[in-house]
């Protein structure tokens, strides 16, 4: 069985590393890929990192993306435009949203179902 993938984007590599650990306590099988920090792992974001994360997270059921603040969003949108993957960036809070999305994905929900759940919950 394959699951909707999750991409966690943050200006800080540590935030998404910790967040992945938090989610992994609950959900093991759902693909979770990280795009934290700039290419040099400084505070910022990187479109290339996001593109790679989306590619790696995609197992055929699409990918949902979460970001922390403003400029991460622009890089995420560019990354999505550059790729063929079915990928949706949502406005839900990074930590709380991705936690819920991981549980939903683990229950076999489709990308659209998860995106709708995000809109309903947040």
């Amino acid at each position, binding site marked *: 069985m394959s699951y909707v993938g999750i991409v966690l984007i943050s200006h800080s590599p540590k935030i998404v590393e910790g967040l992945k650990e938090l989610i992994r306590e609950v959900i093991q099988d759902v693909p979770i890929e990280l795009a934290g920090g700039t*290419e040099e792992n*400084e505070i*910022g974001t990187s479109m290339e990192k996001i593109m790679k994360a989306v590619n790696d997270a995609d197992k055929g059921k699409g990918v949902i993306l979460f970001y922390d603040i*403003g*400029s991460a969003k*622009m*890089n995420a949108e560019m990354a999505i435009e550059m790729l063929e993957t079915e990928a949706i960036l949502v406005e839900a809070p990074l930590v709380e949203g991705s936690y819920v999305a991981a549980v939903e994905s683990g229950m076999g929900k489709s990308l659209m179902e998860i995106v709708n759940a995000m809109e309903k919950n947040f």
Partner: protein
Amino acid sequence: MELRVEDAIQWFTKVNEKIQENKDYLTSLDQVIGDSDHGINMARGFQEVENKLSTQEYQEVADVLKEVAMTLISKVGGASGPLFGTAFLKFSQAVKGINPVDYTSFTSGIEEALQGVMHRGKATTGEKTMIDVWAPVVHSFQEAHDFEDNPFLKVAKQAMEDTKDIMATKGRAAYFKGKSIGYIDPGAASTYLIFEALEEVIKGSK
């Protein structure tokens, strides 16, 4: 004047010089209403642009612009990366196959660049962003008829100064709400530098 490959390269070489010179100034603007990295971001991005432009060969202006765009997108790290990146990518697409770039095509190019920034930033004029410099410069190009007889730099300078009076509603400065008033927007200042460099290229080619 028409913009040739070597003019385009010279343009961004000059942009890089100005950004490096003004690195601390740009960062200091971003310190008041942002996260103190605009100078660092821009300096990192344009240094890499310079490294590319000084070593690669380009067929046409559009190729130079595309190189600038892709480098900024991947190297800047902050909001200004995707924004300037999108601007020069759209610019590049608009002038693709046109070499050298005549005045009318250049004007279409920066029109597209402005649209690109607005689309990427989901923003419009009056929000205290780089758009508040891009938009009046585009307007100046639309009104004028050639590169030389065109007050775009004066326009850009005034527009940059005028961002002081605006309350930010987009980008990090928006978090400061009313307290963002009284300061120049960092991205407006770097946009000004880009057009200052253009003016020098135009002057130099006379």
